[in-house]
């Protein structure tokens, strides 16, 4: 079946099979910044923004995205680069495989929550798993990033 999806502001006409998930369709169309980690909606590596809100594209039917706005990390590259400075300043990027999805969720949290506490941050990002960092460095990076946003 044919889908029209606006991806990072660009109208894309895409083919998909019924029942196919959004991750597959996006990666096949060249949006390889959307990572495939667990296939079961647990790890968060495949996170994209759907109308500005984070969704797990591995568990979101591609057909449902027809006519909608999808944003990958490349669609918010300037903000992502800014956050990357804080993340890499802590060494908490590590293997980087979870980073695009994780970073998109951080940006969504910044848009949504005014002054998140550490508990709020951990809770908002609980669905973005990382096996390398132990999370502590990522929390340090997020706090520094949010603090700098206020300045």
């Amino acid at each position: 079946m044919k889908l029209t999806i606006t991806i990072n502001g660009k109208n894309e006409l895409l083919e998909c099979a019924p029942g196919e998930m959004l991750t597959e369709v996006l990666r096949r169309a060249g949006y390889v910044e959307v990572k495939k980690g667990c296939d079961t909606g647990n790890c968060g590596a495949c996170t994209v923004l759907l109308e500005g809100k984070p969704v797990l594209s591995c568990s979101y039917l591609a057909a449902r995205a027809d006519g909608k706005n999808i944003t990958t990390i490349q669609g918010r590259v300037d903000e992502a680069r800014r956050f990357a400075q804080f993340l890499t300043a802590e060494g908490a990027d590590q293997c980087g495989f979870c980073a695009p999805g994780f970073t998109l969720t951080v940006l969504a949290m910044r848009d949504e929550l005014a002054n998140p506490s550490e508990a709020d941050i951990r809770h908002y990002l609980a669905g973005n798993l990382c096996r390398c960092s132990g999370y502590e460095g990522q929390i340090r990076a997020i706090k520094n990033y949010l603090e700098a946003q206020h300045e």
Partner: protein
Amino acid sequence: MSEQHRDPSASGAPARPAPALSATNKFHVVAHDLPKVDGEGLVLGRPAYTDDLAPANALYVKLVRSPHAFARIVSIDAAVALALPGVACVLTWKDCPRVPYTRAGQGNPEPSPHDRFILDEFVRYVGDEVAVIAAEDEATAEKAAAFVAVKYEVLEPVLNFENALDNPIILHPEPEIHEMFPIGFEPKRNIAAAYHMELGDVEAEIAASPVKIETTVHTQAQQHVAMEPHVAFSYLDVHGRLVIYTSTQNPWHTRRLLGLALQKPIREIRIVKPRIGGGFGGKQQIHVEPFVAMVTLKTGRPARLALTRREVFEATFTRHEMRVSVRLGADPNGHLRAIDMQILSNTGAYGEHALTTFMVAGSKTLPLYNKIAAVRFGGHVVYTNKVSAGAYRGYGAIQGLTGLEAAMDELAHKIGMDPVELRRMNMIHEGETSDVFRIMGEGTEGVAMTIESCKLEECIARGKELIGWDPARLVREVAPGKLRTKGMAIAMQGSGIPLIDMGSARVEFQDGGFFKLHVGATDLGTGSDTILAQIAAEELGVEMKDIVVHSSDTDHTPFDVGAYASSTTYVSGSAVQRAARSLREELIAAAARKLGAAPGDIVYENKNFRSADGKNTLSLDDFSFDTLYHDGAAMQTIAATESFSGEKSPPPYMAAFVEIEIDTETGKVDVVHYAAVADVGTPISPMLAKVQIEGGILQGIGMALYENVRYSEKGHMLSHNMMTYPIPSREDVGRITVEIVDSYEPSGPFGAKSAGEIGIDTPPSAIANAIRNATGVRLTEYPFTPERVLAAIRAGAASGSIGSRLEGAGARTAPRAK
């Protein structure tokens, strides 16, 4: 988890001191926190990982896998699958060379038995490969795989490793399989490997010891769960050579072993490792490469295979399950006289890393306590019809330590001594050695070594401060049914495998005055490309931006065994340091010729060469154009290639202290604070070392509390996705504090040792000891699920031991009567 659990004042820890080396740092690039060279690109999602780079016209490869734990393949009918439009080929064991090999990425000759064919007539676990399908698109490949009709003769499996030894059911009767050198391989007895050593007379020493301790713990299989699933693609280049891009930790071992398994000359294979999404040992082996290679060789077409997460769980490798028994003999004052460690290890269906993980359980734990008269280590590694075990961060040491550190704490309880003081009295110090180093290597004899850097005393002292350690007040009731309790453990690891691991590096001077750094070393997300560039920049007196790193390509970078055994900083880093030092000497000699001076009269600083009299100067930038474009017959490429093979493996050390909260009504354990202090020598990048240790600790906490590979009675894996095998999330642990003490290893690059594995080793031991302190019961079955902890609480309550160590009056007991 409530906010209260993360209250930093709970432990009364003082504020974190300045990072290591800040005051004394005499380096300009090394021991500085610099962003990872690939960091921003990866955050922005630039195509970098294997699956991002696969050619668009590649065939999709899918595998038919065994539904049985043990079976003989009677027939494979692929006619229907082959008839599907878009199916390129179906390959079975009859298409494979009948050559046994090992999938373990290890040196040559491998200490793992050659007990595996790419595909075989027998399948030995649920998920073992049966047939290889390739098709134009993924959906067709999946459909075709479902249409391959396989008839099996189902055999009775051996699933419990306690029953494997000398079981009448033999997993590996095939005549072709063999060991590469004596490793105790006895397949007729289901033994993949065995080993025994004894120094002194352990039985006599223990018999003569006034205090005797005996503990047995059972550690479970654990999964790596690197975020990127195993993936590879292959194609034939213009010369007809086989090129494989793969998420591997060891490109050269993969090339060599693949050459053997495919019966192709090594020169006809090129392995490239792009960025990897984590490894942890899970990619120190061969899992997907043979299948894409077979398809490319059969069809001439590019081929790609990315495992599903379920396949990663069911059909790659796990940590070796082990039963670890430790006996101690000691004097009543706490002086250890003898240690006996006996292990049974479960290698699963094939013997990858069987001998070496098992030996490391002793060789990288027993030297911790070196003031003994006798020590013994031995046991077997057995085959079972479960997914193979392989390399996993900690590599046996974490399992061995659970037995040793349990026994040490039991000894402390028995003689009424602070477990910290017991360890301090018996542990290794700088300037000392252990005979275990000399006797036990990884599959071979070891290498004698005197410890030149060991800051365990400092690690312990700082760790006590961080957690607020008071042996009289380890347990307190913070709310009804909530016990807070502390425990600790110490650990060591290694830095590469001495005289076996070799790394090399090439540095080349480029126009514009920058340097190409080519290393075989394999960055699996740890930042090794970055820290190797830091070492080169330090040695060459330039900035990080002047070093361009290229790594892990068997055609274009020099040899390296790969990223495992905590080797990269020490082994590959030493090679980089040597190469950069040679190049610096070459540069100075060439600049001296140009300036008409003796090399000894040239001062090189701030990227400028200056004659001693100050009359002639030459910038690195100008010189780079001169040597490549301007200087006629004197033009030359200025480059240096150097190698390093360690003559020792200096251990990093850690002292770890944990405070947990036990819910006495549910048995749930929450980690409130994990405080770990490490001696890694000079951290080349303090922040990368620290994050790696923090990550290791969290994996170790996962192993301690809930990560567990579970099977049905027929050998089907029940924990085959991230719902049934959860890994720690951001909300699961209170606080992890990691500090690195000042230390300098004279044999390492700029004083460095290693940091990759030491972090994971302590949590299973420290948490067990904390539970023991609160309940009086030694939990011996990992992981410590609420059910098991609750049983311990009830046993402790029944015996009256629980609550006896509570802070203040020992009158309160838990759980409280309602």
